[in-house]
């Protein structure tokens, strides 16, 4: 096997997520791109390769060919550029591709972006676009929506592990609390368990506050080999591992409805590659597209046994200071979920935390190791990336 190089993140940034009526897909990519290049202390000319995660430019804004579009608009021509798509995991998969490009020795400085412009279509149409991430012929065709698929998991989980809606509500309350401390979050309001439990039902038992929003946003990370990264920054963040796994596209053929096997497999692979133990991880950024998904992620990543994440939530162990802080930026729920950008946005949050630069009230003290978990669909794709500040 090719001897791989150590890869570091020089900079990683995200735009504010939300309903950006004044910004199109190019503007969002520009904003994140310029910020990332400035923070990295590089010039656009140093970038050798561009990978962009984007789920559905075609259906959200009628624009395909996103790789070349972003390269062009950011003035990066004629470097190679491409767009990768894995539904809501597009950003995570883009990061993985960038990581491979640097680790393999083919490129030194690589820009990894994620961008999604979702609010130019009616919310209902956005829901239809997102339905393309499930098995259309056998799920959407029979009336399933995305919230419905996660609701099916939640109902079964409640049946098997006696989970209460209150526990799911507490996940949303935590994520809104951290969102309130994050100036770049889509939602900055705190909510109460009571509010969450009385919000409108979307797909029983999931209510409005169990669901992540439709957001516009972009995120960019600049990668380089560790030795080169040190030229640009005193605090390069090392990519200890990045791993992807796939599972059945539909819920019909899952081994266990309450486990996302892709998460289990990607996490096991990542921990094995990184030579890092679960107890060494200081914080995790997980894919909480729905509250139940955060619960599954904590278990499937191996931080507790199946059925026990609800105890961690109930005991407040997923807050900063607890056993494993989860989604300190507000997660997808509050920080926002611009689908193609989300996986890179998670990297930006980890880099911030590992550099000790998180906003007041949401910094995990002395964070050394962080993990990002990005999911496509209902878990047909899972990307797990482990970062550390070992390079600092």
């Amino acid at each position, binding site marked *: 096997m090719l001897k791989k190089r150590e890869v570091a993140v020089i900079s990683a940034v995200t735009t504010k997520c939300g309903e950006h009526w004044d910004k199109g897909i190019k503007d969002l990519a520009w904003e994140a791109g310029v910020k990332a290049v400035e923070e990295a202390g590089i010039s656009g000319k140093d970038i050798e390769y561009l990978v962009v995660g984007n789920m559905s430019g075609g259906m959200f804004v009628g624009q395909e060919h996103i790789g070349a579009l972003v390269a062009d608009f950011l003035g990066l021509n004629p470097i190679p550029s491409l767009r990768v798509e894995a539904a809501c995991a597009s950003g995570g998969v883009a990061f993985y591709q960038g990581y491979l490009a640097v680790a393999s020795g083919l490129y030194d400085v690589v820009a990894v972006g994620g961008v999604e412009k979702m609010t130019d279509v009616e919310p209902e149409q956005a829901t239809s676009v997102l339905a393309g991430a499930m098995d259309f012929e*056998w799920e959407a065709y*029979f009336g*399933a*929506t995305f919230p419905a698929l996660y609701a099916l998991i939640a109902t079964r989980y409640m049946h098997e592990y006696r989970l209460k809606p209150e526990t799911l509500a507490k996940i949303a309350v935590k994520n809104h609390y951290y969102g309130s401390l994050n100036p770049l979050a889509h939602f900055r309001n705190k909510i109460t368990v009571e509010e969450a439990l009385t919000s409108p039902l*979307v797909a029983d*038992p999931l209510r409005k506050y169990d669901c992540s929003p439709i957001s516009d946003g972009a995120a960019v990370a600049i990668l380089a080999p560790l030795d080169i990264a040190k030229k640009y920054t005193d605090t390069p963040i090392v990519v200890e591992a990045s791993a992807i796994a796939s599972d059945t596209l539909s819920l019909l053929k899952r081994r266990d409805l309450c486990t996302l096997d892709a998460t289990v497999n990607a996490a096991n692979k990542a921990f094995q590659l990184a030579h890092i133990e679960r107890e060494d991880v200081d914080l995790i950024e997980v894919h909480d597209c729905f509250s139940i998904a955060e619960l599954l992620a904590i278990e499937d990543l191996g931080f507790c046994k199946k059925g026990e994440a609800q105890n961690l939530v109930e005991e407040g162990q997923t807050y900063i200071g607890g056993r494993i802080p989860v989604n300190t930026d507000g997660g997808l729920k509050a920080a926002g979920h611009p689908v193609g950008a989300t996986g890179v946005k998670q990297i930006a949050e980890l880099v911030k935390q590992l550099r000790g630069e998180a906003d007041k009230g949401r910094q995990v003290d002395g964070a050394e190791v962080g993990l990002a978990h990005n999911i496509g669909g209902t878990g047909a794709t899972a990307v797990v990336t482990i970062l550390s500040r070992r390079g600092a």
Partner: protein
Amino acid sequence: MSATAPPAHWRRMRERYRLLGSRCETCGATFFPTTKVCPKCRRKGKIAQVEFSGRGKVYSYTVIHSAPKMFEQFTPAVVALVQLEEGPMVLSQIVDTDHKELKVGMEVEACFRKLFEQEQSGIISYGFKFRPVNDHWGKYYDNKDI
């Protein structure tokens, strides 16, 4: 939408009308929808067509309160994962049921229903839905002289 176009429906019609799936004659595993390969037996597997009985149990369910336009007429709709008695899981609406009676393990049977109507053309797609075996509504109608 292209995914709901008549040819796209026509290609899947037998599976959607008659609950047609596959069985691996080497290991006996059953599949829905149809498959071209048994993931366990790989090239040693022999795939045959099988028509499922349509009886099964609710494995999980949800009531959808917010649905795309083409399903709005059924909202609030019950969507469930139904485990067929032959093993495979299908996703389907549960009809002719009181939402309060829904529970995991409830016995259901397949019925033939309208899935949705295309917004523009008005073309109707049909397929299976499921109803409780203990179907009070059905019994009510069955006893009526229509």
